[in-house]
């Protein structure tokens, strides 16, 4: 039933032009061709010109009909045709949509082909040839039109309408036919189409006004944890900052979705030092962590997380100190959090308030950066699309910081937000920057699978396991992680993410998965009082959703959660393109082949603060590009990002994005092999062909244009992941190759990938080591040792 209703042919609405309408007839009112031989006249008081010589096609009088069109339906069910006479329609009070086809299918049940829809604005008109099937729609509420026709044609039509003659019956002069298939105009509200078409017409026929230029010292792209931290730090040095986000400031991105853990060696719960955290981070990263970056994360993370505390984030406290949970892979309790499942929202809210209180930060939401601009191989600003208005704007910046997070939206099963399609990686690639270890995508092992839960983040069970342990069970109710080389969990949460993902997928492959294709997670052994003490209001929300954890197991499965790879940076968070910095998850290297639980927010804030300071410090002596030079640099980007796609053939970009997600999940997901990755690369190329080069222009918050821009970025970034995954012929951490199941010490290397002049360049390099940082005690000061 649903399928029948959705067997829909959609017809895009086109702007009227003489060439486009020529198969169906003539346009009326467009200025005469300079070579026209028909009479025309022009003086300061009057212009007139020949528009068309009307042919009645048979004997009978020409008739002027006054028509009020009130049909604003989007669905097209009936068309009519006049076999002998022409018919003209001139809208007088409001624009109309004229739907036409020349397909004269004999069977009225057959869906006509070649349907096109033209917007006919007030001031113009059309005259249809005989044999042109058509119907008319008003835009808004009604449109009064002048119609020119032949009187006997009208008599026929009135007879048909009044007598309700069967559709498809041929009358003397006119015919109408109905269709069982659903035909529908592409933009359901003609007004929305009208705005877009008006814009298209403007852009193709007139010189565009120069885009607005925003001036700043530091452009920060992305307003999650890393971006907001970078904006604060840059502004505190006195720099002017433009903080841009494609969503709303501090609401999109991954930070706000964090459920619980923030790892940092505060030594509140138990004695600790950043070097212990550092050793755990390196161990989790399986030999691939950039040690200088891991050190910054662990060492500067302490100050960063204290700073959040001083800004009132509200870390959970008990017994006079911050509470620190013991997460898998850590040698001791180290993770602060905000109850209940509220860590991310609290961090985002705190930073958002702090940004608002920081002088020198201009916050602009709904601004999506389309491309970075380069001059003399330095990033000097960006072209952005202001979604709220639908206009391009230019940003002139001394330095730019990419803080757009990761790429987990590339996968069908993910814990991503809409913004996590890897925008920043695409920007960096097109600007010539190298990316590092793109093959390492972390799959969070126990993403919620079933039953369907509404209004909960799929990683919600992580905090439950931190606090309550829980049991991971197979179809038969048996614990299984120890079958895959892990220690028995013994009711605790000890298995690292890469190992648990491996165990669950292998158990499912062995036919011992849960009904929905994952594993069971059980808290049935936990008393209700304990559940309520740990998760208070959440237990009530689960009950409202029909889930009683004392009685019922839930099903979990791995979902794409975080990306260890990212933009290659030095310890100033500078990329290898001057003027370009990166922060947060967008940075590659700190977490190696697998990220330790709790490191993401620490990394976001610590790297953000450092990147903001570095970027601000790099801009002092720069000469800024002139308006003209900036516009010249931007012109090809704007051209490339607004070249009208073929409106009649454009794909549903949102559906193509879903296809890409399925391909990545299947072939470049938790398990990969050579054939699968090659299949994915071919499929990506096919998707790119189907998407075509055009990006449809659009008005304010046009979702089609944004999908097209997103798809373009996602295809580029997906290809970088697939190419890196294909090249690394070993299994390590989050990169598991079925055809190369063992870790290969010869591959204890970082892999870089660049995209220059349309060519991919892969290379390997030695992992950055820090010989001076080893075990903790000898670097501790006496005061630290007592802490």
């Amino acid at each position, binding site marked *: 039933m649903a399928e029948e209703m959705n067997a829909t042919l959609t017809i895009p609405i086109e702007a009227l032009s003489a060439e486009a309408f020529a198969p169906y007839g003539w346009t009326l009112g467009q200025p005469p061709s300079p070579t026209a031989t028909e009479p025309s006249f022009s003086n300061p008081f009057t212009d007139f010109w020949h528009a068309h010589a009307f042919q009645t096609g048979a004997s009978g009088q020409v008739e002027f009909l006054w028509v009020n069109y009130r049909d604003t339906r989007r669905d097209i069910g009936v068309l009519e045709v006049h076999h002998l006479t022409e018919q003209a329609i001139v809208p007088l009070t409001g624009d109309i949509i004229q739907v036409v086809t020349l397909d004269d299918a004999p069977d009225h049940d057959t869906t006509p082909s070649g349907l096109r829809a033209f917007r006919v604005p007030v001031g113009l008109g059309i005259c249809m040839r005989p044999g042109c099937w058509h119907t008319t729609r008003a835009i808004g509420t009604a449109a009064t039109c002048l119609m020119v026709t032949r009187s006997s044609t009208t008599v026929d039509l009135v007879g048909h309408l009044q007598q309700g003659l069967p559709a498809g019956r041929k009358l003397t002069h006119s015919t109408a036919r109905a269709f069982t298939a659903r035909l529908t105009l592409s933009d*359901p509200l003609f007004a929305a189409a009208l705005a877009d078409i008006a814009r298209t017409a403007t852009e193709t026929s007139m010189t565009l006004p120069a885009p607005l230029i925003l001036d700043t010292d530091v452009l920060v792209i992305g307003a999650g944890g890393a971006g907001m931290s970078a904006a604060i730090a840059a502004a505190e040095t006195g720099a002017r900052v433009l903080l841009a986000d494609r969503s709303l400031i501090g609401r999109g991105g991954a930070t706000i979705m964090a459920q619980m853990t923030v790892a940092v060696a505060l030594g509140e719960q138990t004695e600790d030092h950043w070097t212990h955290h550092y050793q755990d981070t390196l161990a989790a990263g399986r030999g691939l962590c950039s040690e200088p970056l891991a050190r910054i994360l662990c060492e500067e993370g302490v100050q960063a997380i204290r700073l959040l505390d001083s800004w009132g984030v509200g870390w959970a406290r008990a017994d006079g100190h911050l509470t620190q949970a013991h997460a898998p892979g850590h040698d001791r309790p180290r993770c602060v959090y905000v109850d209940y499942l509220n860590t991310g929202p609290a961090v985002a809210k705190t930073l958002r308030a702090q940004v608002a209180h920081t002088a020198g930060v201009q916050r602009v939401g709904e601004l999506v950066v389309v491309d970075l601009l380069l001059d003399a191989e330095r990033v000097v600003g960006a072209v952005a699309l202001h979604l709220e208005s639908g206009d391009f704007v230019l940003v002139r910046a001394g330095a730019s910081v990419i803080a757009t997070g990761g790429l987990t939206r590339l996968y069908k099963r993910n814990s991503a937000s809409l913004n996590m399609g890897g925008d920043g990686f695409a920007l960096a690639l097109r600007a010539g920057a190298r990316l590092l270890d793109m093959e390492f995508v972390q799959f969070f092992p126990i993403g919620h699978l*079933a039953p369907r839960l509404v209004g909960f983040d799929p990683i919600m069970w992580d905090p439950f396991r931190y606090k309550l342990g829980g049991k991971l069970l197979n179809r038969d109710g048996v614990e299984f992680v120890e079958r895959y080389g892990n220690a028995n969990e013994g009711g605790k949460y000890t298995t690292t993410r890469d190992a648990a993902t491996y165990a669950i997928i292998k158990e499912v492959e062995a036919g011992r998965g849960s009904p929905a294709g994952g594993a069971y997670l059980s808290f049935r052994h936990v008393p209700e009082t304990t559940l309520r003490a740990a998760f208070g209001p959440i237990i009530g929300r689960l009950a409202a959703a029909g889930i009683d954890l004392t009685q019922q197991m839930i099903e979990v499965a791995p979902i794409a959660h975080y990306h260890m790879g990212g933009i290659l940076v030095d310890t100033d968070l500078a990329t290898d393109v001057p003027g370009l910095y990166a922060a947060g998850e967008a940075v590659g290297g700190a977490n190696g082949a697998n990220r330790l639980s709790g490191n993401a927010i620490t990394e976001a804030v610590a790297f953000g603060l450092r990147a903001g300071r570095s970027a601000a410090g790099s801009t002092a002596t720069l000469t800024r590009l002139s308006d003209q030079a900036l516009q010249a640099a931007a012109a090809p980007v704007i051209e490339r990002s607004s070249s009208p796609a073929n409106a009649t053939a454009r794909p549903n970009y949102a559906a193509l994005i879903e296809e890409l997600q399925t391909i990545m999940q299947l072939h470049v997901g938790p398990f990969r092999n050579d054939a699968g990755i090659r299949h994915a690369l071919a499929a990506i190329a096919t998707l790119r062909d189907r998407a075509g080069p055009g990006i449809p222009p659009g008005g304010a918050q046009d979702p089609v244009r944004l999908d097209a821009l997103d798809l373009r970025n996602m295809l580029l970034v997906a290809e970088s992941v697939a190419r890196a995954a294909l090249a690394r012929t070993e299994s390590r951490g989050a990169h598991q190759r079925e055809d190369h199941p063992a870790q290969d010490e010869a591959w204890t290397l970082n892999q870089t990938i660049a995209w220059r002049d349309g060519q991919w360049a892969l290379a390997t390099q030695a992992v950055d080591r820090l010989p001076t940082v080893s075990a903790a005690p000898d670097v501790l000061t006496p005061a630290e040792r007592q802490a």
Partner: protein
Amino acid sequence: MSTNDAKDATPITLRIQRGVPQHAAAVMAYAVPAEAAASLLDGLRWVRTHVDDTLAFRYACINANACKECMMRLDGKTVYACTARLEAGGDYAVAPLPNKPLVRDLMTAIAPAKERLFNGDEDDEH
């Protein structure tokens, strides 16, 4: 509740108010398979990928009720689309927030003035 309950296959009907400022709004009806629309947001996303990709609505975090961007009206009540549950066979009216300036379809201007590019007129409007 169990995952294997017999599923009611009756489609859900979403009657969605659409339009841009300065033009009359229209209501479009979409039939959505019940299993594709546990939440209103799921249903809207299904419409975009399967029927009509021009439908505009605001969201970021998808299902976590964290970003708080997906506020709209469901049968006259203000809801978060990601937490509003739909029932098989249900017939629902979906509309943009009535007290915020319309941007397109179900999207309204909800950002604070100081977080928007053009905010100079804001004080005059309110």
